[in-house]
């Protein structure tokens, strides 16, 4: 099967895709974009979060064919120049330990701040409920989202 879609602003055509491959597999193994991570493959951890037509989804549960003709944005494509403010805030707040959950959290937090520039803590927790982290205990992650929100609104 051939899949043609837009990834991080450029159109890509991928040939010989097996129907059973997920969008996550296509991105990581065929498009050279290993940012989104593969952990549970069941929609439970959020480490594979990417934008599909502007909404964050779990790429592990998207069949490759479902991406045909659509627009995907991964953690690698959040910023054209250097790091996005959300990425910077994760570094500055020390919200990264092993880093496996980080790309998914960054995409999900990025979407939250696009919709709700100044979220309450409860909104941050609810938005990130589908992203699991085994290392940090989440406090620094909340700090990072608050920091990103403050920096974005200050701009």
């Amino acid at each position: 099967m051939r899949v043609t879609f837009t990834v991080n602003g450029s159109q890509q055509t991928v040939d010989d895709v097996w129907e059973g491959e997920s969008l996550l597999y296509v991105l990581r193994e065929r498009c050279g974009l290993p940012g989104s991570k593969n952990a549970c493959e069941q929609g439970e951890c959020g480490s594979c979060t990417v934008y599909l037509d502007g909404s964050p989804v779990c790429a592990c549960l998207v069949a490759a064919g479902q991406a045909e003709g659509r627009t995907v944005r991964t953690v690698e494509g959040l910023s054209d120049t250097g790091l996005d403010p959300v990425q910077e805030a994760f570094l500055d707040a020390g919200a990264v330990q092993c880093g496996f959950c980080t790309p998914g959290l960054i995409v999900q937090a990025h979407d939250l701040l696009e919709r709700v520039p100044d979220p309450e803590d409860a909104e941050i927790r609810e938005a990130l409920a589908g992203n699991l982290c085994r290392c940090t205990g989440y406090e620094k992650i909340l700090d990072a989202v608050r920091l990103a929100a403050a920096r974005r609104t200050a701009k």
Partner: protein
Amino acid sequence: MRPFAYERATDVRSAVATLSERPDAVYLGGGTNLVDLMRLGVVSPEMLVDVTRVVDATIEESAGGGLLIGAGVRNGDLTADPLVRGRYPVLAQAVLSGASGQIRNMATVGGNLLQRTRCSYFQDTSKPCNKRRPGSGCPAREGDHRNLAILGHSSSCVATHPSDMAVALAALGAVVHVEGRHGPRTVPMPGLHRLPGDEPDRDTVLEPGDLITAVELPELPFATRSRYRKVRDRASFAFAVVSVAAALDVADGVVRDCRIALGGVAPVPWRAELAESALRGAAATAAEFGRAADIELAQARPLRDNGFKVPLARNVLVGVLTDLAEAR
């Protein structure tokens, strides 16, 4: 995962025709349940017919004064819709209480209604399960059933239906629009999902090839006073242990009308009709709400480890109705 073909449907009729001819084919909505079950080997269709670009994905006012929700509407868009939030808050709350933002962005209304049970034996192909392999047995009856049914189960299956959205739709008396081999028809809720009896492999009354095209909400003015409450093992991102969807119409301290459904307790979204009729005309007090809950739950047949769901369902039901009676 077994090899399969992927096809994108071009229109509703041809999608129905394809599935009517090929018993090994299934519809694909958002894929958040189907792709998972295929990966686990629970289902192995030979063809997926992606219907997300042919079923309607809009929410509109219906001729009958209600709302017509396309089966392709994403769960996330449903929770954000101002008409749904304003007129049927119980539905927006129910959908919002399920899964995560990422899953809701992908999941469709049609797929949500037809998602399969979360019984752990059903999902584990190394175990017997009458729902997955008819006649192989039901290990849950004697095994892990803490989170399974107290109402409506049979000796062949004690699973619960996992959908939060379906509980709200059953309470509201939604009507499911279906396109089938012999043309369009409607199926009322409750009534779409079926009790297991001795055929637990059939979750619904739908026939092969039936495509859900829309869900219609009836005009129900008092549903502006409605609520969904879900009890789960952690604060967010878990399936219901028990849930209650209710709408209440109170005037001068008396219940004029009400709609109640329970989730997490039965193989179907459980419309509490006995409780509803006990409440019509009764005083809107916690004592009467408790009496109605007891009448409904007198039918419960808890299993060894899930008897706690009976008082839990009672308490949540009384709590929700009391809040609704006090709300202005």
